[in-house]
């Protein structure tokens, strides 16, 4: 389980028991639930993705078939959205990481001696959770609209071209994604940094490493589990998000992501096979990326 690494408490070795009846009783209800409401929908999504339009049918009418061309079609129609989704998600992940690392470091390491302050800062990090995600995004949309104080000031300071605008651009969407997922990045980072044993850093400086080298060779590698968790928790939902890029929020026509395409196909175009095929592609791509990433970062034992 990728995320099990971030638990706060020490793991106590457990003598594993093999008492399958109790285990079965404990596992069955939950697993059955997931089979029913997670696995089955995925399978039906897979089947839907292979449907073909009903002959002489009305809009939105399809029959089961083995129409794998759906995948080819959506790939060729929507490849820019696929690329865009992963591009935006990647950019948001990188920005969130850059933003969050120093913050998490301060809370987890520098503020260790002051539990009250640490607690307060953690509350502030999760504070955005308390205000609906949508409202926060809308707040930014207003704060960054063309005639807003921020944008007009930037223009007055010539930091922005006079005819430029922010909302509806890729920057706005990436900005929104970044902002919205910062807590998801900061908290796992905080969790590992909070547990970072400073004696390793001292050992590093005792062994002639200057502060920068200690950071590079000791701090970063030791906080890798947090980095991996944070980036996954940011990247996965960001890649599938459709609120930030929605035309009613921070996006415009040329910033639509896969989530928007899936939504439009499901709800507007009533092209269910296309929506399903895109969903399957999105999920498969994420799984492949996560797998490669976790392997690469040497944290596969977390899975």
């Amino acid at each position, binding site marked *: 389980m990728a995320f099990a690494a971030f638990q706060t408490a020490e793991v106590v070795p457990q003598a594993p028991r093999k008492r399958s009846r109790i285990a079965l009783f404990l596992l069955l209800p939950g697993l059955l639930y997931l089979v029913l409401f997670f696995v089955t929908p995925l399978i039906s999504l897979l089947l839907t993705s292979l449907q073909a339009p009903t002959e002489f049918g009305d*809009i939105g*009418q399809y029959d089961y078939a083995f129409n794998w061309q759906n995948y080819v079609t959506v790939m060729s129609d929507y490849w820019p959205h696929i690329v865009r989704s992963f591009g935006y998600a990647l950019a948001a992940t990188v920005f969130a990481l850059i933003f969050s690392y120093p913050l998490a470091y301060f809370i987890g390491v520098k503020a260790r001696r002051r539990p009250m302050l640490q607690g307060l800062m953690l509350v502030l990090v999760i504070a955005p959770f308390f205000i609906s995600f949508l409202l926060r995004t809308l707040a930014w949309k207003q704060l960054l609209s063309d005639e807003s104080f921020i944008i007009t000031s930037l223009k007055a300071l010539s930091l922005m071209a006079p005819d430029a605008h922010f909302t509806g651009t890729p920057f706005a969407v990436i900005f929104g994604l970044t902002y919205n997922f910062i807590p998801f990045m900061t908290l796992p980072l905080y969790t590992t940094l909070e547990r970072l044993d400073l004696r390793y850093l001292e050992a590093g400086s005792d062994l002639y490493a200057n502060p920068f080298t200690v950071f590079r060779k000791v701090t970063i590698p030791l906080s890798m589990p947090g980095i991996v968790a944070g980036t996954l928790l940011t990247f996965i939902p960001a890649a599938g998000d459709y609120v930030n890029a929605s035309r009613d929020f921070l996006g415009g026509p*040329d910033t639509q992501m896969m989530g928007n395409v899936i939504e439009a196909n499901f709800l507007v175009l009533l092209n269910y096979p296309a929506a399903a095929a895109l969903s399957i592609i999105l999920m498969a791509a994420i799984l492949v990326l996560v797998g490669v990433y976790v392997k690469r970062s040497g944290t596969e034992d977390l899975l």
Partner: protein
Amino acid sequence: STGGGQAKPTAAADTSATDKTVNWANWAAYIDEDDSGAYPTLERFTEETGIAVNYEVAVDDNNTYYGKVKDQLALGKDIGADTAVLTDWMAARWIRFGYTQELNHDNIPNIVNLNPALRDPDFDKGRAHTLPWQGGFAGICWNKEAIPGGIESVDDLWNSELKGRVGVLSEMRDTMGLILQQNGVDIAGDWGDPEFDAAIEVLREQVESGQVRNIKGNSYLEDLKSEDTLAAICWSGDITVINAEAGDKWEFAIPTAGGTLWNDNFLVPIGSPRKANAEALMNFYYDPEVAAEVAAWVNFITPVAGAKEAAIAIDPELAENQLIFPNEETLSNAHIFRSLSGAEEQKYQAQFQSILLGA
């Protein structure tokens, strides 16, 4: 198979006799409203009939509204609205799929006031399922402070000075209707793929170049208000409403090459258990005086005959308002988008949607 329209759902049993409420899903800026945000005519309706109205601005765009409720409709379930207001072509789809309940005209005696020209549309002969709420034009509008000189045609929207500040509607028939007319096509007439393709290219170019800031449903009003857009393709009466709300800043015009003309209709969704209440509501708004009062506020074309006379009683100037009571000349410049076959619908919608999605 997914999607609706095959095994037709059956209508819910009517509990109006005991349940004195009605849920109404409508578009933004589409009813009279006072300064406190209350709806005077609705209050009057409740007073007169004892039926409480739950008025919800739930429709932003025909397609997205349909997307939200279609699964429930297919199952014949309550969608949370006892009457929804939808545009002709969408209403036609609902009727085709069996998603509407047949109206009992006995409950709507005021139906006699229905403008005769609207009595027999091809999608609903004899108005068995629908009743017009308002009609209107799609045209162009602009921010008078930002564009003091005003604009006249769709082409003016493509002026580079407005780059990134132009909005167009997600309603395909309106946006494409205006562009087609700008291209010299008679949208009510006999046009086909080549004309549509040419028009879509115009739109595509403007979207891709960034000239068009956004493509939206009724929420284009929010962009106008926040001034993210300074000019847009808009619906006629809306401008009056936002002028009243946010200061007299905007102006509407039917473009020189022609605007579109359409009607939005009441219908009763198949799962609604309060059809009689919905019919009482329709009946109420078919009273010419009530219709005039609404019209005075929303500035859309009222389908109720006799409303003009009632309006003169309120304010004689209203009768001259071309957006409410268009004369022949005005009407001659607006056209009804011809009906599309199922295949055309699917194809044109997909082409249009691909622009919304920025592919």
